[in-house]
């Protein structure tokens, strides 16, 4: 899996016209300079030889050094990763904090006021482009009200308050479409369960309140479907961090990726793609493991076979 992803990246970056040497040396470079530079970086070796070298290095834990700067890819990732990670985690926290209670409220009274209102809002949330939302939030909160800064970044070590202030708008931008999507999904799933499942009827029949049935019986089952969707959405989530980091000038991985791609900085792009790919694979593994924690039926099937 990871192998396929990295090989594809390598293939794509190499199949494309334009090369690192001329991109890095600029338009004033002489052909001779380009040639020596290419030889120094082994850019003239055949594709498979270069991929083999890179793969061999990665297996031994060496991600190589950037072509554009003397920094090693590993240390570069080490610098950039926390920013993106914080962004994603913050966004997911907002997403769950809003979408789970909202979905339960919707499912409690289908076609009630809350339900209709949140369905309309969530449709809007799904349809809005992240950059439109970002600029809208900037106009309202940064320009008109001056509550949050429009751009900039402070790391946690420089002060938690400043860090949170800088990360709030970007996180909301990422979180809103996700919230809309998860709310709709959870609501549909809860309603379907409430209408058709035996254990819900049992729970209702023994006199549990609707609220209790929803939160403790139905919701627990819905988490399984929710987990699957989060796993599937991860690649999209990563995509939106690239755009959001660009708009808010956050020094995260997406920001770095854009630069690396236009520089044809293959080791850096490979490193970033490897991290993204690993994140997706890890998330899927984690999803599988959590399945059996959440659903005893899956656990029992496994232990019998």
């Amino acid at each position, binding site marked *: 899996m990871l192998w396929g992803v990295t090989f594809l990246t390598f293939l*794509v970056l190499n199949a494309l016209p*334009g090369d690192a040497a001329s991109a890095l040396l600029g338009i004033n470079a002489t052909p001779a300079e380009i040639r020596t530079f290419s030889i120094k970086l082994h850019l003239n070796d055949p594709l498979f030889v270069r991929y083999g070298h890179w793969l061999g290095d990665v297996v031994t834990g060496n991600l190589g050094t950037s072509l554009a700067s003397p920094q090693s890819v590993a240390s570069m990732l080490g610098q950039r990763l926390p920013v993106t990670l914080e962004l994603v985690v913050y966004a997911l926290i907002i997403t769950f904090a809003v979408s789970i209670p909202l979905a339960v409220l919707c499912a409690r*009274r289908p076609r009630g006021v809350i339900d209709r209102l949140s369905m309309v809002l969530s449709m809007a949330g799904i*349809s809005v482009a992240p*950059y439109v939302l970002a600029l809208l939030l900037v*106009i309202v909160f940064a320009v008109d009200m001056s509550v949050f800064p429009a751009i900039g970044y402070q790391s946690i070590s420089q002060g938690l308050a400043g860090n949170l202030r800088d990360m709030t708008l970007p996180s909301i931008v990422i979180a809103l479409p996700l919230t809309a999507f998860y709310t709709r999904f959870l609501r549909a799933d809860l309603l379907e369960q409430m209408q058709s499942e035996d254990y819900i009827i049992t729970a209702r029949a023994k006199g549990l309140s609707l609220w209790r049935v929803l939160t403790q019986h139905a919701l627990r089952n819905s988490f399984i479907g929710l987990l699957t969707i989060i796993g599937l959405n991860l690649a999209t989530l990563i995509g939106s961090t690239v755009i959001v980091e660009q708009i808010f000038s956050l020094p995260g991985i997406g920001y770095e990726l854009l630069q690396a791609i236009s520089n044809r900085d293959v080791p850096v*792009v490979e490193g970033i793609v490897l991290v993204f790919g690993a994140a997706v694979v890890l998330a899927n593994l984690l999803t599988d493991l959590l399945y059996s924690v959440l659903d005893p039926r899956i656990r029992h099937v496994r232990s019998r076979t």
Partner: protein
Amino acid sequence: MSVPVPELLSAAPVPEAAVEVVHGPGGRATGWLRSAEIAIPGAILLVLLFGCFIWPVVYPVPKPTGGSLLTTNLPLWSHGHIFGTDIVGNDIMSRILYGGRVSFEVAAAVQVIGLVIGGVFGIVAGYRGGTLEAVMMRVLDVFIAFPSLVLVLAIADSLGPSETHVIWALSAFSIPAFARVARAATLRLRDQPFVVAARLSGTKSWRIQFLHIFPNMLPQLLTFSLLGASITIILEGALDFLGYGIPPPGASWGNMIAAGQSFISVAPRFVVVPSIFLFVTTLSMNLLGDGLRARWGVR
């Protein structure tokens, strides 16, 4: 009684609700409301399409580029320029119309490419099964786990910014998505009686795949492509934003928003006007897709 009466009442009509589940989970409004669900977004989209493609042909709309520097930065509702002019004197309304063309063209092209290539891929994989399917699905898995934006950026960056290149780059998203949907639908249809009957009567397998199975999944693919079109329009704008989309003298909603970002504190309308059009378009597409999905009873 720990259970309040209204709650019992709201949970009571189970049989009725269970019938509705056949049409679509969640329970939807019926009657005129349901047709409005399709008619209103459909009408909005038609008006937008008319405005973008036919209106500039039949009515003397100002040119979207080469505006006069004497009339820069006119406010909203100026004479002759309803949405005013931008920082180099171009009429914003006309840029919206011509930019909309780009959005619709890109969205349509990307969906058609996805439908044809991804559809064939998915049907063949699903129908044949076996090793071929396993290999094809592996390839697809790699594409899906792969953050497509990397691929799109790499393609867009090297080919240079232009509408055709944007279309090919964005197809990297739509092809795997269509392939997945088509395969799932094929698996569901493969053992249906009408397919078995066709197979037993000696119909060639490509005929079964494209004349029997394909028409049956068409409603599903069409609603899917409406949702896909709205995503494509958003992504096209994202490429503009990152500088890999439609190059600036040409108009597109995305690059209007991107260009307006620099003037956001002095003239928010540069951003707000195209944003509204973008939002209304994607919202209508999503609503129409959702409405048709409920109407046709596809998941």
